[in-house]
Structure formats: structure tokens, C-alpha cells
């Protein structure tokens, strides 16, 4: 890989945890938040980094940005060792933490951008050009003079994304960029990220709980669990690896015994006239719906996508099963 922009080779992060076991007594033990992870990301890639809470996602991002020093292994971003040359790297990366803001709470949005302009020493012409472009793409025109504390969560998130991109970073890290956003805001953010990646070939690495983020944005997914990389490849492959299932929720006219669905689809729950059916994510929902509608009095229905936790949980069952047989 000659074009590897982010390189991790056996990277580890071990935390010393002290647990209170009695008065003045402490038990020390080590937690491996990240356990020997290796991967490379090429320039211009858009990668989803997913996993359950506490899996080590944030810890990885924090090592990539230089916030945390790895306990072992080799890590390079744009050829720079992040924890050793954090400030030098800062000029080349953009970071958005979904739950925290870099913006000045009491001041108009534009003031935070002016600070970035000077703090990152962005040349005037480039700053104006970037600000105009980001303002347009992220629909910030009317918000620039509004104090940040008056912005909605979605507006603030767009504001934060613009702040992270004013200095033309080569890579953008996003930690849960759509968490808590409404559908319209989520769409705006996703559209923008797609455009950023295709038109400016900015490398994007995002962590998320929202499988739709990944579906709509990332050609590549990395799954981390218990500090280990358990999957690295396209999203379709993840569904296969996890044999994930979607859920069809149907409302019947009245209470009926469980629907006799064509296998492998099966009823997993019945609650009055409402029934839940699980079916493989790769199978067509339309076909299943048609077959049920032909035989049962259907009033309403909805399809639920598998969530990441479920996909990963099934992936683990699979692996455990294979290990046994």
C-alpha cells in the first residue's frame, strides 16, 4: 500500500484501572481498550468504524488524533506519529465530536470561525473561499450571526463540521456525527459528507451507531469489539458474515394465531393483532409481504433494519458456533 494515509500496526491501549475493594484497599487490573489492531486507510477512502459501546472506537480515534498515547504498536497518520507531534498533525486533520462542540457558546457562530482562521493561520483568501463554500453547502448562511447557544442540535452539528473543515484537512474524523439529529438534519449531514469525499477526496473516518450512516456513505466498514477488529470489508459482507435479519412488523385486522410464514422467515413475537417476523436481510421484503397479504387480513406493516448491535451479536454466535463444530 503505497498510498496508505492512516496506518496502524499492532496498536494497543491498556488502561490501569483501580477498583475499590474495601476501605483504602484498591485492586489494580489492566483493561485492554484496544488490543493489537492493524489496518490501513488509503487517501480518499470513506470508512465506517462501528462497534458496541465500550468496544474501543473512541479510544482508537483518540490515538489517531494524538489525544491518547498508544501503549504499544506503531501508528502513523500522514507519516506523522500523532502523540509525538500532535500540534503539527492538528493542521492536517479535522475532528468532530458529536457530543461536544468546539464552538463558542455565547458568541455568534462566525466568531468561532474567525478564531479558527487565526488559530490555524489559514491564508485570508483560502479562509474566505472555504467559509463561503461551507456556508452554502451546509446551509449556514442565516446562522452565522446567531449565538451558538441558540442553535438547534442539527444546526450546531453542521456548524461544528464547518469549523473542522475551514483549514482544509486531509482527513476528517467524525465521532457519532448524526447522534440525536432529526431525519432532515441527518440527510443534510450525510449529503454533505458524500460530496466532501467525492469532490475534494477528503479521507473520512466515522464512528456511528446508525447503520444507515454506513449504508449511505461508506464502501468499507470496520467492526471492533472488545478492542479487536472483528470485521474489515464492505457492508454487504458484514450482513453475510453476521447473517443479519430484518424484522417485518404486521398489524392484522384481528388477533390471529402466529402467521405461517415461508421459512426461513418466522414469527418471533405476537402481541394482540400485531406480529413480528424475522427474515434474512438479504431476502426480499416485498415477496414476503405479498405472500402474507394473500392469506391474511393485513392492515398495516413496517420493516425494521437490523441494528449494529444485533449484527455483531449474530456474528459472534456464528463464530462461536464454528469454533464448536
Amino acid at each position: 500500500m503505497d498510498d496508505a494515509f492512516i496506518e496502524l500496526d499492532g496498536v494497543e491501549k491498556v488502561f490501569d484501572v483501580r477498583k475499590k475493594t474495601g476501605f483504602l484497599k484498591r485492586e489494580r487490573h489492566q483493561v485492554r481498550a484496544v488490543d493489537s489492531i492493524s489496518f490501513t486507510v488509503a487517501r480518499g477512502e470513506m470508512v465506517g468504524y462501528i462497534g458496541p459501546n465500550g468496544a474501543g472506537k473512541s479510544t482508537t480515534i483518540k490515538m489517531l488524533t494524538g489525544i491518547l498515547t498508544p501503549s504499544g504498536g506503531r501508528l502513523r497518520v500522514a507519516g506523522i506519529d500523532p502523540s509525538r507531534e500532535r500540534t503539527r498533525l492538528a493542521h492536517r486533520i479535522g475532528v468532530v465530536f458529536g457530543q461536544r462542540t468546539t464552538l463558542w457558546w455565547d458568541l455568534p457562530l462566525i466568531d468561532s470561525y474567525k478564531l479558527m482562521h487565526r488559530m490555524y493561520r489559514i491564508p485570508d483568501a483560502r479562509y474566505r473561499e472555504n467559509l463561503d463554500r461551507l456556508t452554502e453547502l451546509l446551509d449556514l448562511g442565516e446562522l452565522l450571526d446567531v449565538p451558538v447557544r441558540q442553535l438547534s442540535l442539527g444546526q450546531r452539528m453542521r456548524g461544528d463540521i464547518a469549523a473542522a473543515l475551514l483549514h482544509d484537512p486531509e482527513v476528517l474524523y467524525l465521532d457519532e456525527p448524526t447522534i440525536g439529529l432529526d431525519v432532515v438534519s441527518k440527510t443534510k449531514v450525510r449529503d454533505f459528507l458524500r460530496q466532501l469525499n467525492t469532490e475534494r477526496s477528503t479521507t473520512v473516518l466515522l464512528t456511528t451507531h446508525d447503520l444507515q450512516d454506513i449504508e449511505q456513505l461508506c464502501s468499507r466498514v470496520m467492526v471492533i469489539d472488545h478492542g479487536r477488529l472483528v470485521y474489515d470489508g464492505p457492508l454487504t459482507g458484514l450482513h453475510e458474515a453476521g447473517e443479519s435479519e430484518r424484522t417485518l412488523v404486521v398489524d392484522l385486522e384481528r388477533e390471529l394465531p402466529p402467521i405461517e410464514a415461508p421459512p426461513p422467515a418466522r414469527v418471533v413475537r405476537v402481541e394482540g393483532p400485531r406480529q413480528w417476523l424475522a427474515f434474512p436481510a438479504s431476502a426480499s421484503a416485498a415477496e414476503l409481504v405479498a405472500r402474507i397479504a394473500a392469506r391474511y387480513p393485513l392492515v398495516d406493516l413496517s420493516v425494521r433494519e437490523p441494528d449494529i448491535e444485533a449484527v455483531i451479536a449474530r456474528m459472534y454466535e456464528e463464530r462461536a458456533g464454528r469454533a464448536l463444530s
Partner: protein
Amino acid sequence: MEGLRAYGLIAGMWVRSGMTYRASFVFTVFGNLLVTGLDFVGILLMFSQVDSLGGWTLPEIALLYALSVTSFGIADLLLGSMDVLGARMRDGSFDILLVRPVPVLAQVGADRFAVRRLGRITQGAVVLGWALVAVDVDWSAVKVLLVPVMVVSGAAIFSAVFVAGAAFQIFAQDAAEVQNAFTYGGTTLLQYPPSVFGKDLVRGVTFMLPLAFVNWVPAAYVLDRPYPIGLPGWAAFASPLVAVGCCALAGLAWRTGLRSYRSTGS
């Protein structure tokens, strides 16, 4: 240099943030002046009952008080918000500072920069002016020169204590009160002559945490008084050296702390 520039930029943002609540800003400036002023009124009240404290007269005590308050005031203005560092680490907003291309110490120092803290310096300077006129001293060129040296060195020593305290907070994130004990506690201690304290405390404040070099030792020289403990004659001029040493140690502690920073869970 990069650090000073960043400090200025961020302090400016906080000043403008503070200005958005104008009425509150005006109240806190006056409130601060009043509260720190009451401090010295307390000493005046004490002297309405006694003629001397530990053998020191009112103008002499006023000089100690003013030197301590002014130099602490400068450090407090510049780095006084370092006790919010622990809170920033707990809520995770410290991470934001770490991904910016400017020194973290400058950002943490300028955090919540507040103009109202000028109140303490103003009040200290007023008392200092009065004390310098009122003390019975045979002024020589050296003694005159020693006054600004004391204020600057004192400010540097207190600044070092602030930075060291911040470094300590990285390890113990709820240790802001420990830091306050040394900073606010230190300045209150130095407002009284060393003769009223036990020898062990004075020794500790001279050799362990060298706050004695903020005012006790150099002021003793100015006032022709014996040094708090048997120190050589040149000790009065050692304050700048002590200040440089303290700052170097504090800087080292800060670097060590930052490298071992663990961040929060998410």
C-alpha cells in the same frame, strides 16, 4: 511565542463572551473589587485593636499583604481558571483542546479568562502604593528596584503553582480543591508576617513550596528585618531564580501529566 499568541486569541474570545452579559459583567467587576477590598479592611480592623502583629507594624503588614495580593492577582488573572481543568476532563471537552494546533497550556491558561479578576490586582496595587509611602524605610536604589522584581517573581511563582496544580489534576481529576489550598491558601498565608507562624511551616514555605520568596524574604530585606529563617544575605535577591526554577519544574510536571492523560470513556 505561538503559545502567547494563542493565549491572546482565546482570552479575547472569553472576554467577548463575558461581554454578552453586560449587566452581569459590571456587577462582577464591582463585586470582585468590593470582596477583595474587604480583605484588607479586615486587617485594618485588627490593627484598630493592636499596635503590631508578630512585631510588624501596620504599614509593614500592608506591604506584605499588597505584594502577596498583587503578585497572586497577576497569576490569577493569567492562569486562574486552571481549576476548571478537572471539570473539562470529566465532561470530555478537554479533548477538543488537544486537537487544536496550539499549545494546550496556553488554551487551558486562557480558559474562562475574566477581566473581573483585575479587581484583585487594582486593590493590591492601591494598598501597595500606600504601604510604600507609609513604611519607615531608608530607600536605596537596590530596595526600590527590588519592589517590581518581587511583584514579577511572585507572579511567576504563583503561576508555577497554578500550572503544577493543573498537572496534578490530570492524575486526580477532582483535585481542584488541593490546588486552591496552595494558591488561595498560599496568598492568604503570605499576608501575615512569618513571625506569627510555626518554624516548620515557615521552613516548608521556604524550601518545599518556596512561596516565602514572593514577599517574606525580599520584603524582610527592604524593611531591614531578619530573614524568617537563617538564610544568607543574598537570599533576598534569589526570588527571580526561584521563580525560574519553579516555572521549569511546573512545565515539566505539565508535560508529564499531558502524556499520561487518559481521557474519558466516549
